[in-house]
């Protein structure tokens, strides 16, 4: 035994391998007949918390346009710098996003964009099945963000108003 190895004192006189083994076998046998915790994923899905922050969704007005007014708050607040916004203005002076892209790979799903949005336009969603065949597929443009239908994040637990 090399010097520097810690030599512990163990209570040899009180330890018993055989009895500990029997105890362990009792435990494993008990677990064998216990209820299983597996979730059968594709058939059975995990229920998400109302505060779950997943991939984004852009809400729309009744006439089908994005609620976004291109104020620029969300790209400013975004800590991961994943939102690309190019503002535009129509002839009546209403601002709207010409380009609105979110790189979901860079996004850290903090939910600041939803929190900061004055128009309640951009939201993080309660959604997790996001697989794609290419990296480019994870850059969601405005059309795609508007086409999402999954429920959106509550940001705080509705049962606990103090959390707001």
């Amino acid at each position, binding site marked *: *035994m090399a*010097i*520097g*190895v*810690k*030599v*512990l*004192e*163990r*209570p*040899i*006189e*009180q*330890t*018993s*391998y*055989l*009895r500990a*083994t029997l105890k*362990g*076998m009792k*435990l*494993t*046998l008990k*677990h*064998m*007949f*216990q*209820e*299983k*915790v*597996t979730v*059968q994923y594709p058939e059975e899905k995990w229920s998400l918390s109302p505060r779950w922050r997943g991939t984004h969704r852009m809400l729309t007005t009744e006439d089908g346009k994005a609620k976004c007014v291109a104020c620029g708050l969300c790209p400013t607040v975004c800590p991961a710098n994943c939102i690309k916004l190019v503002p535009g203005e129509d002839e009546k002076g209403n601002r709207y996003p010409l380009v609105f892209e979110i790189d979901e790979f860079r996004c850290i799903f903090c939910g600041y964009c939803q929190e900061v949005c004055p128009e309640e336009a951009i939201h993080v969603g309660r959604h997790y099945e996001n697989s794609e065949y290419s990296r480019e597929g994870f850059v969601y443009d405005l059309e795609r963000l508007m086409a999402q239908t999954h429920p959106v994040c509550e940001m705080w637990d509705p049962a606990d108003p103090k959390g707001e």
Partner: protein
Amino acid sequence: MTIPVFALLQSVPPQSMGVFLLFTIVKMVFFFTIYMVGIAMLTLAERKVSAWMQDRLGPNRVGKGWLQPAADGLKNIMKEETYPDAAYTPLFILAPAMAFIPALLTWAVIPFGAPWDSPWGRIELALAPLPIGFLFILALASLGVYGIVLAGWSSNNKYSLLGGLRSSAQMISYEIAMGMATIPVLLLAGNVSLNDVVERQVGFAPLSWNAFTCTIAWLIFLISAFAETNRLPFDLPEAESELIAGYHSEYSAMKFSLFFIAEYGNMVTTSALMSTLFFGGWDIPFTLWDNAAPHTGLKTVLTFLFFFAKILFFVFFYMWIRWTLPRFRYDQLMALGWKVLLPLALAYIVVMGGAIVGLEYAGLAPASWRFSGILFGINIVLVVVLFFLFDRGRIVSPAYSRLDPRHLRRLRAITASRSALAARAEGGGRV
């Protein structure tokens, strides 16, 4: 075209060479089918049992889980076989087969049912009922180590080699304890033929089963069987945390799978041995009906099913232990084999030999219930002694148990002074 099997059978005289050959072939085909399918299903059983013990569900996709072994087999056959450049190819190819064949051969002598008095003469329900059955088993058990050692050596990989070396040391050590543990059984039976061993136990089953008349021998045999089959807690030849996968690190596809088949084959074989030597073999407990004279086909089938159930129980026991106990350290393994099991087995031979001679001297017939009862009483006392006196940090010892007390004190002093220094340095830093 149908072959007139029965007409052919009627045409040969009773107990002729023809009947013997035909029934031997039938037994072999029947047995081999059950054995191989059983082993395949055991891989599934192991995964299911492990899953249940960990609160999971286990494989349930391919045919509700039942076809999982078939899917695994198909996958393993279609995968690429890799041959390491530096491996010694002939032995590399031969090793998986050499691991498996002894497990299969052992079955030749194990009686798996009551004999059947067929219209064509008595059919023994063992492939080759050798009069030296038990010696044959001991010989083959020693051969089992070759597959693993050669796999480890021919892979030309240091981890494989270490795994192979460990397994050879382990299997040789535990074989001695295993062989010694069975001597009381042979003393009771008075013969090495497995049929006689079973005959001895049928009297007042289950009291006359060797598990109750030679309990300590059974416990030693059980522990040694775990070491012989390289199952947890003695799977040091694989020891993935130290040796990657030990002796089968370099194997792939079906050759890799063959080592698993060998492991499960060995499990079934040792379970069958344990049933035969200690649990009355094919005997049905609480009744003598199955051993009485008219040996009908029904009795043969029922005794076979009982034997099957006993094997399944022990196989489950293997899995149960595997998912309960952690792996031993190497020195613990060796200490257990040489310093605990072997002396225990030797002492037990003396005790049992003395007891048998004493009982026979006192005029008790070996077939009487008193004979078994007194032996059972002796064994209960011995088990209690083992559990409450002997098992105090001695069966599985800490790493320092091999050190001289003088060195141990010195090492402890160093540890203590270092921790004191460290504590002072830490305290000073804070101030």
